[in-house]
């Protein structure tokens, strides 16, 4: 709750809205006890007095009634109507929505058909029709406005509930013996409640506007009682001669609705956990670079990373995702980068071409050199011209990584036309050739299908074809087979291996699977907590790992053919990268750790094979 308040008031606009709204609200509550004139006493001798007239701070209206007093009473009425209508519509609509969304099937169908029908009216028609039946009056206008908004709540909350009802925790609750009512009330409602509260709070302003509108038309509050809308409606006839009588209630409506909207937005933002974590920020075209010095090249290589560091800045926390990673890729070489989730392997890969989402990502040091040219901090246009043409990427989940609304052929042709000014038909021909190169069955017909019409394996073939489009020197493959089934994975790995040998491609292959690395990669680098802990020729590292982490990781992965057995698990968890311990990050889980392991910087040492450990396993 304190966090919520802190977040809310960090947003200055929302705070301003809250202040204005509370002042108006308190004044409205106090109206009966304030020393105001009677709002209904007419005084034909003092009609249309201007503001600041003696005795009438805001002047008088067409019947000589005190405007200030009428404004306060009107505000009180409008606020009450808005809140009651929003809460009423929200409660009924949410109840309907939750029931429809949870039960689904026929219940859902009937309810939602009816809701759709109500939404088939422009809402004012329905409101007008209800007022026509009930007769003009503020209460009836309130009922009409609330009734009209019930379908919106119902539809909204139903959508949320459908999403929740398919979550596994609802199944789990069922298996825990909970009945429908219990699940609705104790499982779904608490999760839908924030959304309902947000929707209600943002709707109050809308409700005030709508009832004011009906009153303005003469269908709401009836004289002499007046809410803000009917004050405005009555003043309309004298709009040109005495504009202040319209401006006073109009400005008040505006002020109330504006402050409610500001506050509502603030509440929404404060309640949205994604916004809190910075996940709703839009990633920029290239990752932010904030580095003090640029290290010189430490060796040869087609693509080489020198002391590359990347961090995520979320609020005050700093997550050191990648710390001083150095890695080289020779022409035609396949290097595996292996690690568990959160080890920084993907961030390392994405940093090369500035594709780490930023905010919150920042590259804080080091260099990534393509044939000696530093890509970190290169101007956007230079980076863009190299992306896809010299260094291409293949990503993990091919359904999410292909644009869902463009045809396969167009996406391939676009990849080519980004870098080569060729005609559409020429690009299409090349796209067809690319699909044939990745052994896409029936390639010509596949040019005109959308990604969702292909299977996972076929989509990944498209992803590979797209990476090959401009004959790059380097391909960075970020877990390209993780989302695929084993038999399809074998096909894709075989294809990648064939292509790299035929074309002399250099591949940086990111994975968490030692089996894959063993089959595909010449060299392998193992990452733990943002650092490379071991690196060397694949066969040697797998046969005799030097770093205890590598050794124990290999040992705890079950291997086919080893039979039934107990696995030698690694105790504990990888460290959080916003609180990295001093020394070796693996020390707390390591059997061989000594005091020296938790002090100072432990360097990556060695030549052909390198490791970051002071008690390495024996290496043959």
């Amino acid at each position: 709750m304190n966090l919520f308040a802190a977040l809310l008031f960090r947003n200055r606009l929302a705070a301003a809205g809250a202040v204005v709204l509370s002042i108006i609200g308190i004044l409205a509550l106090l109206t009966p006890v304030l020393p105001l004139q009677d709002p209904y006493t007419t005084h034909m001798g003092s009609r249309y007095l201007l503001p600041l007239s003696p005795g009438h701070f805001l002047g008088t209206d067409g019947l000589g009634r005190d405007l200030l007093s009428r404004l306060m009473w009107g505000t009180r009425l409008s606020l009450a109507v808005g809140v009651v209508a929003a809460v009423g519509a929200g409660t009924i609509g949410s109840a309907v929505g939750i029931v429809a969304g949870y039960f689904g099937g026929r219940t859902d169908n009937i309810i939602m058909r009816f809701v759709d029908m109500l939404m088939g009216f422009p809402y004012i028609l329905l409101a007008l029709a209800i007022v026509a039946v009930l007769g003009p009056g503020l209460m009836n206008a309130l009922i009409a406005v609330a009734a009209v908004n019930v379908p919106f709540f119902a539809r909204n909350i139903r959508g949320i509930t459908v999403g929740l009802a398919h979550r596994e925790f609802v199944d789990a609750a069922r298996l825990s013996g909970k009945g429908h009512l219990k699940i609705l009330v104790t499982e779904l409602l608490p999760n839908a409640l924030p959304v309902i509260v947000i929707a209600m709070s943002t709707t109050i302003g809308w409700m005030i506007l709508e009832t004011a509108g009906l009153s303005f038309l003469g269908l709401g509050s009836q004289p002499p009682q007046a809410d803000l809308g009917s004050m405005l409606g009555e003043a309309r006839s004298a709009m040109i001669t005495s504009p202040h009588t319209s401006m006073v209630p109009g400005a008040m409506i505006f002020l109330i609705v504006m402050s409610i909207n500001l506050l509502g937005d603030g509440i929404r933002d404060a309640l949205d956990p994604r916004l809190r974590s910075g996940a709703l920020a839009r990633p920029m075209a290239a990752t932010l670079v904030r580095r003090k010095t640029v290290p010189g090249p430490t060796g040869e290589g087609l693509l080489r990373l020198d002391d590359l560091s990347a961090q995520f800045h979320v609020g005050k926390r700093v997550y050191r995702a990648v710390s001083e990673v150095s890695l080289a890729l020779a022409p035609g070489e396949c290097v595996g980068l292996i690690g568990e989730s959160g080890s920084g392997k993907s961030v390392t890969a994405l940093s090369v071409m500035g594709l780490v989402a930023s905010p919150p990502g920042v590259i804080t040091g080091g260099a990534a050199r393509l044939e000696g040219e530093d890509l970190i901090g290169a101007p956007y246009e230079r980076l863009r011209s190299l992306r896809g043409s010299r260094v291409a990427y293949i990503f993990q989940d091919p359904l999410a990584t292909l644009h869902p609304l463009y045809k396969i052929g167009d996406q391939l042709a676009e990849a080519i036309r980004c870098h080569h000014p060729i005609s559409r038909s020429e690009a299409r021909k090349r796209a067809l050739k690319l699909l044939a190169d990745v052994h896409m069955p029936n390639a010509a017909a596949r040019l005109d299908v959308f990604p969702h019409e292909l299977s996972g394996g076929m989509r990944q073939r498209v992803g590979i074809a797209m990476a090959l489009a401009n004959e790059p020197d380097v391909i960075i493959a970020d877990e390209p087979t993780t989302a695929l089934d084993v038999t399809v994975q074998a096909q894709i790995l075989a294809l990648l291996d064939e292509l790299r040998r035929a074309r002399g491609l250099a591949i940086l292959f990111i994975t968490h699977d030692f089996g894959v690395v063993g089959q595909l990669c010449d060299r392998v680098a193992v990452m733990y907590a943002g650092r490379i802990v071991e690196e060397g020729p694949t066969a040697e590292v797998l046969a005799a790992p030097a770093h205890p982490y590598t050794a124990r990781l290999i040992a705890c992965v079950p291997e086919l053919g080893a039979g039934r057995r107990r696995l030698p698990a690694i105790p504990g968890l990888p460290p959080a990268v916003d609180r990295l311990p001093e020394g070796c990050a693996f020390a707390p889980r390591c059997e061989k750790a000594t005091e020296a392991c938790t002090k100072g910087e432990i360097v990556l040492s060695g030549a052909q094979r390198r490791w970051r450990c002071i008690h390495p396993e024996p290496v043959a």
Partner: protein
Amino acid sequence: MTLALKTEALAKRFPAGRRLLGGPRTFVHAVRPVTLEVRQGETLGVVGESGCGKSTLARMLVGLLAPSEGRIEIEGRALDKADPVAFGKLIQYVFQDPQSSLNPRKTIRAILEAPLRNLHGMGRAARETRIAELLAAVNLREEFLDRYPHEFSGGQAQRIGIARALAATPRILVLDEPVSALDVSVQAQVLNLLADLKAEFGLTYIFISHDLAVVEAVSDRIAVLYFGSVVEEGPAERVFARPRHPYTQLLARSAPAVGRPLAPGGEGELPDPLDPPPGCAFAGRCPKATDICRHTAPALRPIEGDQLAACHQPL
């Protein structure tokens, strides 16, 4: 040995597509008639790739989904109506995604109390003791009880999920990909925990996974699912070492393993579920397929001893 669980021709089909007016155009057979027997105290591994129907099968076994055909018997009792409450006391489910199986707005205590209260009607004091036992069983500290699920790592969340399943004191646990969402170093911890719990409480496991090596490491017997049917079934040590069905062979060869060259791998993928082939579903990808394979669906039959395969040309 007595049977813990038995299914007879258990099948599930879902309507697919829509006509211009009304009814479904066709049905997708997610699970074709499956007959399985699980003995008391054993672990049956169920392996299959995505779309093979393994999750649908699992959901039917615990009563979350009503079967279209066939029957389920648990310890001799027929349980055919999908009713999680009736099933809950006999058979429980451990979900794949530990985080999404825990209600984000409930404390761990509230999550663990639900089965104790609703299935066993325990009083407050009894619940307290039982929760303490459960936490100890899954190696979690009691101070976690008043925290919310998002404060836990995947491995810890999965332990909570297992504790909740155990709270119902079931005889059987259906483990649906219980370690696929976990990192390998944590995966081994959870697998070992599951083995300990099984010995301690005398449980029977149905362990569903796409990972052959994991299944082989934990199972007594293994059933291989392809396109909704069991294509091979047999003792864990033989199924992948000496596969009888060509699909099992392809699976075993495709699994990446250190020190083995890249397998060329068969081309092709699953048939279209909306337009299933008349014969063996694997015929389109099978190097040994003949005419009979393309026209007649093979039945599951013993090939050698207790190793069964649904194949006209077993290996």
